[in-house]
Every structure is written in C-alpha cells, then in structure tokens.
C-alpha cells in the first residue's frame, strides 16, 4: 500500500483516496464547505488548503489525489495564512446576521470562522445583496448568505435525480436557483437544508421556532414508511420541533424523505386527548372508566368468533404483542389481521414477506425487475439507493407496470401477468438476462400482490428464482416492498389469519359485515361499509378510524413512547420516547391491561419493561437490535398455484397523505396541493 506523511506522521492508505481523506485518516482536521462524502467533488470553496512539499502554492486537498511519498502539512503558519485569507474572502460578501439566522449554533461557517478566521474584516466596500428565491413550501432561502459551495446543486442532480437546481450568472452575480423559481419536485428535497453549510437554505416550517442548543435530542426510528430511517427528534418542552436524519449506512445513508422530516407538525394537530363514546350518533367526551365499562359490556355479550382486531400501519411491536395476547388469551379469539388491503401473504417462511436482498445489498445487484411497484412514493429512501446503484454500476432496470418518473431510466416490459408468464416460461428476452445475472433483484410491490392474481405473481416468481438458483443463503433475489412500518413485525408476531382457500378471510368477512365488534388498533386505512358493527378505535389521531368509531381510546404516537419496529428488511430497531402524549392519552399496553382488568382477567404484564422483555424473548429474531437475522432459506417449501391472466395496475400512493400523521400535517397538506397543481397544469415539463 502507498504511504503518505501527514504532519510528520507516516500512514498507509488505499489507492484512490484524496489528500483530504488521507489527512482525516491520520487524524488531522481539515476545514471544508463544499466537500461532502456522499457527493461528487467540486473543489470550489478552497477552505481545505494544505501545504504539500515541493508545491509553491497551497493545494485544495479535497480535489487532490493522494500519491505515494507525498509530504503533507496541515498545521504550518503557511496553511494558517492561506485559510485565513480564504475565510476573509468568504466573509467579504456574507452578511453577519447570525443573531437572526436559523442556522446559528449549527453553522459550519460560524464554527470555522471562529477557529480559522480573522477576528475582524478589512473589507469596507458594499456587500452584495441577492434576492430570495422560491424553492417550494419546505425550503426557506436567504441567498445573500450563500457561499456558492454548490452542495445543494450536486445533491439534487446526483442523489435526488431531479436536476432542477443550478447556478446562474457568474462571478459576483452568481446565484443558486431552481429553474424560474419553481418548487423542487422531489421527495428528498429538504435534505439540501442539512447539506447547506450556511444559513442560505433553511427549513421553512421550522423558521424562527427554536435555537439548536435549546432542543432536547432523541435518537429514534421513523415510521412514515417501512424503511425504518434512523432519525433524531428535536423537542422543545413536549413539542416535537423538527426531525433530522441520523447516519446509518445500511438504511438511509444520511438522507431522510420529506414526509419523515415534516409530517411532525401533524403530531400536534387532530390529536385524541380524551376517551370518546358515541351517543345518538354523536361522539362525546367521557372518562376512561365509562369508556371501558361500555366496551366490557359489549365484549361480554358477544361471541369470540364475532370479534375481530385490525392492526394499523404505525403500531409498534410491543402494542401488537400485547394486543395479540389480549385477543388470544382473554377474548379467546383468533380474528386478527394486519393487512388493511387484500394483498397476498405467504407467512410460511420469513423470506416470503421481507426485503431479502437488504437495502445495502441493492448496491451489489446487476439486474433489477420491479413488479407492480413505485418505490419512489412507497419507499423513497430505498428508491434513492436504487438510483445510486444505477448511477454507479449502470445496471439494467425493468418494470412490469408503469410507475411513472422514478428519477432513473427503466424499461417497461409490459403491465400484465402474461409478461410474467413469458419470463418464467423462458420465452422473454429478460429470461436470458436472469440466467446470466449473478445477483439479480426482483422487487414485488403490494400492488402486484392484490386480489386474485397476487398468489400467482408471488409464487411463480419465487419458483422461478429458486429454479434459477437465485434464492440461496448467499444471495436472495426475492424482495417484497412493504409500505407500512408495522407490517413485517405484525407478520412476525402472527397477526394475520389465512386458510387454505382464502388468503384474507377477515377482510372478506368484513365486506359481508359478519363481525359484531371491531377493535381497531391505530387502523385508519380500512375501507368497508359499516353496518351494525360496534367499533373500538384505539389510536392517536382523529382520522378515518375515529370517524366511524363507537368508542375512542386515545394513545400516544411513535414519538411519545418507546417501541420496537421491524423494517422491510426484517431489521428490528428501537424507537425512543421524545415527548409526552396530550391530555388523558395512555400507552397502548396500559389501555389493554386496564381493559383486561375490567374484564376480570389479567395478562400478567405489570410494566412496560416486562412487556419488552416478553417481546424480545418471544423469538430469536427480536433479540438482536439493529441487525438483520438471516433465516435459513428453504427452497423445498413451495406452493401450488395457477395462472391468472390480469392487468397489474400500480396503485397510486398519495405520498404526502399516506398515514394519519401526514394527513394531519399542515406542511404535508401544502406539499400535496403544490404537487397536484404541478400535475394538473402540466408545468412539470
């Protein structure tokens, strides 16, 4: 390995690194603005200047490839002078408005000018003034503060795949803008706020809300989609002020989607803070005792077969665990379901309902087939990973069904199960590609598992992949893209019901109104015609579920309780409590415990800690936090299936409105109306 000397310290490095990266390896800190690990190298802020032996001038280390035998110095008076000069240039046109700038306290320019800058400016001329730019409802701009690092442009073009940002004009007149100041059409747009090293791009919904040092920071897990992005929740008092990404290379790199970041204002709106009972068609406030009494009365007069429990999309493992115990042991009913749409499920083996290749594994794939899925709106972060793989490895991507703009090119090979049959019968051109491919990926969306053709789509693809040796312990090409944070966990815990003939008996019975009592645990997506059912809704928001409920039991959201979630890869992660639920709301396990007691029975779970221990001990899968427990591949386990000829239609996912928190959020509302406007006027291009 080549060697380099940094500040008289010799270290070895891998070929292909830049001087800046090697200096970091050697422990020498180098200031920078434009350089970012995840973006291409621009080399235009000149803050990372270092001294390299035999070079008469200081050199921008971020753009300089390290070579064998280089002697680099980062702490000499020469370097210090160069940095000070650079900093003076950057500050020449920068308004010193830190007291009214939202970036204050977490500003790279502020921090670095303290360590590497002059204490005063020699620049006495007029500073330049730049007009604010409109970049949509999420990004607030103050372009006078911009130092032209171009991180935002590079992010939009490279990572988000929407080349809408650019630098117009030149020299002193250079300005960063979107084309004619249109709103950025991306679900990743707000990441430019984190990337901006100064206060030029700041968060619009969070403008002038708080100072970073006033906020309490809690590291947690996102539940807006099934990806399980790692986040940091910043709270002021009990109010969630903002959500930021936390770096996790295996899941979300260091990006999060706009919904993850900005649905948090929905945590304050439409909240259920006290129990409600429906009397004479109207919901009226009541006390816990009265509400529970009413439920107990109803439960005692109903047969167990006529009671069903439906689990919603954002429910944590603990709540689902105790919900199941409650149903099985106290109500002696097995009518539990976690699906709110009729999507096919084969839970015989764990690999049948998770994303087996793992999000990180996408980068190794050499061929991709999307079946009835639009990853851009179903799992934005995963889509960014597919784009990254496309950009780096130039893989071929095919799709069955038309998902629209995915930010990378792909080829639609049809939108019918007939195409799938052709591939499987090896009559299609893709079949050969699958044979030659070493690490293919097939992503099956929920839209492809719908209705009567779901079984055929899933089982035939699985059979085909097994036949071609693409499902082994080393590489598993079978991937299910679930959309909800609670789904994989719910299936792991067994919250579903199926029989040989019918894959979704509960939902079918619901359509024919065969249940007398429905217990909805945060389930808002259920679509059925209510007749005489008595509906208990336990959840956090006054949304679709609460509207049809007869009794409402208020409970906290994901930021207000500890809880485990399993993401679509089957990785279990723990979310932590960052604030408190409003009013009389109680944690889900507590509610169910009290209901059991009111029924005169007990589950023997006395504290949340006990519940967590029981959950974790219930299965070996649940004990390794943050890891994917690989289950053994069973290629013999197959199921019979017959061909169903049908069109595969990709369901439209209302990205900004996909769950009750997002629907309650003003910011998401605004984003949605702007997006709809773009679509209806056709100004998108």
């Amino acid at each position, binding site marked *: 390995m080549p060697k380099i000397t940094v500040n008289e310290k010799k270290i070895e490095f891998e070929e292909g690194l830049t001087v800046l990266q090697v200096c970091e390896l050697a422990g020498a800190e180098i200031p920078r603005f434009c350089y970012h690990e995840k973006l291409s190298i621009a080399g235009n802020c000149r803050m990372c200047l270092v001294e390299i032996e035999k070079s008469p001038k200081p050199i921008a280390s971020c753009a300089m490839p390290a070579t064998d035998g280089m002697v680099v110095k980062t702490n000499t008076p020469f370097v210090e002078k160069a940095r000070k000069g650079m900093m003076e240039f950057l500050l020449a046109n920068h308004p010193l408005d830190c007291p009214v700038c939202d970036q204050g306290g977490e500003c790279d320019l502020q921090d670095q000018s303290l360590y590497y800058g002059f204490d005063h400016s020699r620049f006495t001329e007029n500073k330049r003034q730049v007009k604010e730019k409109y970049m949509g409802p999420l990004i607030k701009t103050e372009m006078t503060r911009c130092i032209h690092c171009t991180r935002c442009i590079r992010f939009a073009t490279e990572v988000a795949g929407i080349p809408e940002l650019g630098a117009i004009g030149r020299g002193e007149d250079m300005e960063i803008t979107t*084309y*004619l100041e249109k709103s950025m059409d991306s679900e990743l747009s707000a990441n430019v706020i984190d990337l901006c090293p100064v206060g030029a791009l700041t968060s619009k919904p969070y403008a002038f809300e708080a100072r970073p040092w006033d906020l309490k920071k809690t590291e947690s897990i996102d539940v807006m989609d099934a990806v399980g992005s790692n986040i940091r929740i910043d709270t002021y008092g009990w109010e969630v002020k903002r959500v930021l990404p936390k770096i996790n290379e295996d899941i979300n790199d260091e990006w999060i989607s706009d919904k993850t970041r900005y649905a948090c204002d929905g945590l304050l709106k439409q909240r259920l803070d006290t129990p409600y009972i429906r009397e004479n068609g109207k919901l009226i406030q009541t006390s816990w005792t009265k509400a529970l009494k009413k439920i107990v009365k109803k439960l005692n007069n109903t047969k167990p077969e006529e009671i069903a429990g439906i689990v919603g999309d954002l429910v944590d493992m603990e709540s689902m665990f105790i919900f199941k115990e409650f149903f099985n042991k106290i109500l002696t009913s097995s009518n539990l379901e976690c699906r709110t749409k009729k999507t096919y499920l084969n839970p015989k083996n764990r690999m049948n309902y998770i994303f087996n290749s793992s999000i990180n594994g996408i980068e190794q794939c050499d061929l991709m087939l999307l079946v009835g899925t639009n990853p851009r709106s179903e799992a934005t972060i995963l889509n960014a990973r597919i784009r990254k793989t496309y950009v780096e490895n130039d893989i071929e991507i095919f799709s069955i069904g038309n998902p629209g703009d995915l930010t990378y090119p792909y080829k639609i090979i049809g939108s019918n199960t007939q195409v799938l049959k052709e591939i499987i019968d090896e009559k299609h051109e893709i079949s050969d590609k699958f044979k030659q491919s070493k690490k293919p990926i097939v992503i099956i969306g929920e839209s492809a598992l719908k209705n009567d053709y779901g079984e055929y789509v899933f089982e035939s693809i699985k059979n085909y992949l097994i036949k071609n040796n693409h499902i082994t312990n080393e590489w598993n090409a079978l991937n299910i893209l679930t959309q909800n944070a609670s789904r994989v966990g719910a299936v792991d815990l067994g919250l579903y019901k199926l029989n040989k003939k019918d894959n979704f008996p509960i939902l079918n019975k619901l359509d024919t109104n065969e249940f007398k009592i429905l217990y909805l645990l945060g389930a808002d997506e259920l679509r059925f015609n209510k007749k005489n059912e008595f509906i208990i809704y336990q959840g956090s928001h006054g949304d679709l579920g609460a509207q049809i409920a007869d009794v409402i039991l208020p409970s906290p959201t994901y930021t207000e309780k500890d809880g485990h979630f399993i993401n679509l890869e089957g990785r279990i992660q723990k979310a932590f409590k960052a604030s408190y639920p409003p009013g009389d709301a109680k944690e889900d396990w507590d509610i169910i415990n009290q209901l059991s007691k009111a029924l005169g029975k007990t589950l023997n779970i006395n504290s949340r800690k006990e519940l967590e221990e029981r959950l974790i001990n219930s299965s070996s899968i649940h004990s390794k936090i943050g890891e994917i427990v690989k289950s053994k591949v069973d290629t013999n386990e197959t199921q019979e299936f017959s061909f169903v000829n049908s069109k595969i239609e990709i369901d439209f996912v209302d990205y900004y409105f996909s769950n009750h928190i997002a629907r309650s959020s003003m910011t998401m509302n605004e984003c949605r109306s702007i997006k709809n406007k773009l679509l209806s006027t056709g100004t998108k291009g």
Partner: protein
Amino acid sequence: MSVKKVATNQPEFFQFSDENLNKAKKIINKYPEKKQSSALMPLLFLVQKQNENWIPLVAMKYLAKMLDIPYIQVYEVATFYSMYNLSPVGKYFVQVCTTTPCMISGAGKLVEVCKNKISQNQNELSANKICSWMEVECLGACVNAPMLQINDDYFEDLDKEKTEEIIDMILNDKSPKAGSYKNRKSSEPESGRTTLINLKDA
C-alpha cells in the same frame, strides 16, 4: 459586466426554421453519442441569430428538449456567457468598444452618438424598437480604432460624423457598408502597404 436580465415579455412559441433545423442537426452530429449536450452553445447562438439577436425562455426549453438535458442546464449556460442576450436588443445590435486603444482614439464620441441617436441608456431599445447599443470590452480590432460592431459586422476607423451616418441608416432599417471607413484594406497602413508589395493577396 452588466447583470443579465431576463425579459418580462416572453414569446409563447419558438421553433427553428427549416434551414436552421438542418444546421442544428449538423452541429449535433459533430458530437459523439451521449455527448450531444455539448452542442448547446452553438445551438444557443443559432437561436440568437434566428430570433433578432436574443434568446427567449421558450427557446431554452426547446433546446433542452432537443438535446434531452434539464432546463436549468440551458439556463445556466445562457446566463453565464455575456454574449447571449436574454432580452430583445433589436434587429440591429450595436456594440461599441470602449477598451483603452479605442477609448484614446475617441470611442467616447461614438458612445455620445449612440446616446443621442438610439437611446439614453445602454441595453435600451430605440424609439422604433429596431436597435439598441451597449459598451463592450475589446473586440480585437485595436489597429482600426475606434470601432463598433453591428450584429456580425465590424465598422472601423470611425469618427463622430461617420458613426452618425451609420446609426441613421440602421435606424431606417438599411444595412450600412461594413469594414474600414478610411478605405483601408483590413488593417493595412492608411497610406498603403510598405512590405510584401509584390504579393497581391497577402
């Protein structure tokens, strides 16, 4: 350099004429596969020639679609270079050189004429909207100073009267004669050649 302003009054439609479309295709074909976006700069110039010396926004969109590149990329290039005009400059676009050699030979008088005849300020259309003028940096004809450029042609060795004549002509939509106004052949001495006398076309 002046700040570039995009015109507020934009046409709704732009399309290359058949002749220019052929030219454009030839230009695009000069570049290798997948590198067609490099043809952007000559194409922008072609737009400017066709559209009375300026580039409207629709034309930028038109080019972006033609080359399959994002709009912003065209916009960036068009705003970066000073010789692309983003607002109307008239059928006759007058650029007066005011860099040192021209300046000491009397470019100030040329500017005066433009101010009096065309418009008080630079980048402003004349009353009949047929022409506008601006000061520019060296146009590389220092030997024939002072000079000005109208569209593609140079008008050299000028003085106040001759400039007035030229400007009057263009204001009446007539094309003046290009070249030296002291009857010099390109930049040869005024009194005729002193070397290479035997070579006719030297």
